[in-house]
Structures are given as C-alpha cells and as structure tokens.
C-alpha cells in the first residue's frame, strides 16, 4: 500500500481527490506483432480465451497514488505521452480504471467541450449545445450567453457568432471553445493545456479567468508544458514520467528537478 505523504499539513485539510494505486490501460485493436493485420485479426477470433492476441495494451498510468486537498492548485508535468491527460480523464471518471480507485468530492469536470461542438453549426448554437453538454440548464446558458460571446471576442470583427464555426479562423474557434468551457463553475476543475489558445490579449484574459475559476473551484488541476504558467498558478506539482509518479511536492522543488531532467 503506497503511503500518502501529506506535506505541510495545516489544521484540518479536506481531501477532494484521492487516487489509490491507479492503473489505466488502453487496449488497441491494431498494429499487432503478427505479420499482416488480417491474419492477426483472424487468429484473434480463432484463439479465444487466455490473453487476447493481436490486441496491444498500452499501460498509460501505472499505480499512481496521491491526495489533493481543497484550495490546492496542482500542476501536472511530464514529457509527451507520460500519462498526464489520461490521469486527468481518470480522475474525472471518464476513463475506467484497470486497477485501483479514484475517490472524488462531487463531480470533477474537465475543461473541454471541443468534442460536443459541431463545425457545421453557428457559433450561437454551439454555445448553447456546449453549455448543455457540460450540464448547464437552458436558463443558465441564457444568463451567461452574452458573457461567453463577449469573452471570446468573436464579435469584435463583425457578426461572426451567427456564422457556422467552420468559417472561423483556427484562433477564433479555439477562443470560442475556451470561452464556452470556462463559463461553468466547478468543484474540482481540470484544465488540459488550455492556456495556449488565442492571441496574447486573449491569453491574458483566459489566465485571469482561470485564476477566478480557481477561487470558485475547490481544487484545480492544470496540465501544461509551460513551466511559467505552472509556476504562476500552482502551489503543488505532480511529475509523471512513463505513467509513474516520479515526484510530488511544492512547485519550486519539483520544477527544479524537472528542468534538470529535461536539460534546461
């Protein structure tokens, strides 16, 4: 049993997220070690039972344990493919755990509605659809609609919100997506590299919004490759490498080690 190592415990610290020996495994129905994938697929069907053949397993998160507390902003760092996003999705309950458990206070939400939006629809309808997909009510969306549009700055250069999203520039679309996602208040909020969207003006605005969200949310998780934005927003950092938790501690300590590791 991996021991929880609570640093600087103040009086009563209320845990909001507990990960207990969490393992996440992806199964991919392709690229087997066999010759052609057709024969591999056949042998997979014929040889039932035992370990499935031709199915490759990707062990993305290997036994991660930690406890996050209310009011904390936790940064997640690590090289590409180290399991950061997977870990966030597992915390949000979106990816089933292979082994181990995640306990959370309320429903953690991932900041991201991209998948619910449709390029063929107008920005206007996407705001409503995205809001509904995040679980907001129609009234809540109506109340926030103008804020969302203003925040995204879509209408600064003409009436773009009534045009289909496929006509937007990539920057405009990214800004609208972030604005929709950030419109909701959350208990446990997880942000996956959202700070890199839009121009400088918009980045400033979105950083301010994230700080605001952090105040309202109990706990914030932030995945980023930008050490500066981690330093600015987080007081604790988890460092993942190859799906394992390599380090867990105050931002400065972990970042110093991480920068040494990446040779910076």
């Amino acid at each position: 049993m991996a021991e929880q190592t609570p640093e600087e415990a103040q009086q009563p610290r209320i845990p909001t997220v507990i990960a207990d020996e969490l393992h996440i495994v992806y199964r991919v129905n392709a690229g087997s070690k066999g010759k052609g994938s057709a024969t591999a697929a056949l042998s997979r069907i014929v040889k039932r039972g035992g370990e499935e053949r031709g199915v490759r397993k990707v062990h993305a998160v290997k036994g991660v344990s930690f406890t996050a507390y209310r009011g904390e902003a936790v940064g997640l760092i690590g090289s590409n493919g180290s399991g950061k996003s997977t870990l966030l999705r597992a915390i949000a309950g979106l990816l089933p755990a292979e082994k181990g458990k995640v306990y959370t206070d309320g429903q953690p939400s991932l900041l991201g509605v991209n998948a619910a939006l449709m390029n063929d629809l107008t920005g206007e309808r996407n705001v409503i659809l995205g809001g509904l997909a995040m679980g907001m009510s129609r009234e809540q969306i109506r109340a926030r609609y103008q804020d969302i549009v203003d925040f995204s700055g879509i209408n600064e250069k003409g009436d773009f919100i009534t045009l289909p999203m496929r006509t937007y520039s990539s920057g405009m679309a990214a800004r609208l997506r972030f604005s929709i996602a950030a419109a909701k208040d959350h208990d446990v909020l997880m942000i996956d590299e959202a700070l890199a969207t839009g121009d400088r003006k918009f980045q400033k605005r979105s950083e301010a919004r994230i700080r605001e969200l952090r105040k309202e949310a109990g706990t914030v998780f932030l995945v980023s490759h930008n050490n500066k934005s981690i330093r600015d927003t987080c007081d604790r950092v988890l460092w993942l490498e190859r799906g394992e938790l390599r380090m867990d501690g105050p931002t400065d300590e972990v970042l110093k080690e991480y920068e040494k590791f990446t040779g910076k």
Partner: protein
Amino acid sequence: MSAPPSPDDGLSPAELAAKYGLAQSGARPGLFEYVGQLWDRRHFILAFSQAKLTAQYSQAKLGQLWQVATPLLNALVYFLIFGLLLGGRGNMDIEVYVPFLVTGVFVFTFTQSSVMSGVRSISGNLGLVRALHFPRASLPVSFSLQQLQQLLFSMIVLLLILIGFGHYPSWSWFLILPALALQFVFNTGLALIMARAGSKTPDLAQLMPFVMRTWMYASGVMFPLDYMLTKVTAPGWIAEALLANPAAVYMDLMRDALITGNGSEDLPGLPEHVWALGLGWALLLGIGGFIYFWKSEEKYGRG
C-alpha cells in the same frame, strides 16, 4: 518540512475517502438514479439530436430541403425496381401499391437508421465520451430522436403521396401517433443494445448493413408479405414468425392506419393482436435495452 501529525495520517485511502464522504469516480449509478440523470439531460439530448439533424445538410445548396427530398428519392427508386420492373405488387392496384411501398420504406428506414446510428453512437463519439460527463445513454437516445425527427419530415412526403393517390384524411390517421410512439421506444431500445455491442466491437458497423438488408427483405417492405409467402409455399411457422417480427408489425400498423381510400380492401386486414405485438416489442426492447446498456455504463470510453 515538519508536518505536524494529522489525525488522518494512519488512514488508508479508502478510509480517508469514506471519512470525508468522497465518492468513487466513474462508478455506475443505480438504475433509478440513472433514469433521473438522463431526465436531467433531456435538453441536451434534444439539442444534440437537432444539431445533428441540421448539421447533416448544412453544406448542401438545397440545405434542409434534402430532409424531404432524400426519402422521396428513396421511395422512387424502390417504386421503379419493385413496382415497375419486378412487379412485386401482388394483387394491388397502383393507387394502393405506391402508398403501401412508401409507408413501408419510411417506417423501415426509421428502424434501420436508428440501429445504424446506434452502433456508432458510442464508438463514433469517443471524444465526447472521454471529455464530458453525462449519462452515456444520452447518445443512443439522442440519435434515435434524430431519426424520429427525420421521419417526421418524411411523413410530410407520405401524406402528400397518400392524398395524391386518393387516400383522404380520416380519423384512423391519428393512429399513427401511438404507432410511431411504440416504434420509437422499440428503436431506442434496439439502438441502446447496438450501442453497447458496438462500443465493444466496432466491427458491427461493417456487419449491420447486411443484417439490416436481410431484415428488410424478410419483413415485406416492398411487397405484401403473406402474398409472397403463399406463393413460395413456406411452412406456416416461418410465415407466422415473419409476420410477428417488429418491423413487419410496425409497418402493418402504419399502413392500416393510413391507407384508407379506394382499393384498401386489397390489403390484408389487421388482426387485433398486432397492436398487442407492437406494444410488447416496444416494452421488451425499450426496458430490456435500457437495462442492458446501463449495466456497462462505467465501461464506455475505454480503448
């Protein structure tokens, strides 16, 4: 750091979670709770289905006109092949055959497209499933709702054809409302089953078109089923089974309600038990499919 001992130090993660009332993330809710969650998302389900429907033809020049044109062209093709070339009309006059055929095509397409979109509803929307939290049944339900709305467009075409061939509105036309409601429940149940199966085995999306086509020919979409069966002298139980299959049942209900004008006496009469069959199929698949889908709720989105 010198951490002052906290009362929580010795606790295992599970005990700590229990102490502060944390719930396990991604655990499956109870059946009734699940129904409640789904009900809370009704606005999303409706908005998503409408959005899908609109997005479908938004690139076409004729735009939403295709909602009506597609079913019309479909009916025309079947009429050319089965009505004129192959003479699958049985003993029906053209005034009855055309509405008979078009009703059949539309009703069957409703089930067919619900199944096809159901198969892909989870496996084709993994991005959505992995990014947001909502009862997963929202997706298959939403897709069958989309098909229902599509069918309502087709009904406009159908009503025009009916009137064009001398079948004027009568009180029995109102029977299409319960018939459609039953078929919608049946389709949704089937879509839920296919969604779970398709999320485990995406290959089903390749296989289902053939299954659906077989089902279509076996259900008498473009020819009167019992007329054909007597022609090939099939054993009685096969005829019974084919006539009781849900696609045939829902088609019979619709045809009986809608085709009222001259020559409708050529249609086989509708026995009382067909409504009971329609209700039975709807309840069986609706409830069974929902429970089957819910059983694996926490597993959608893997791999």
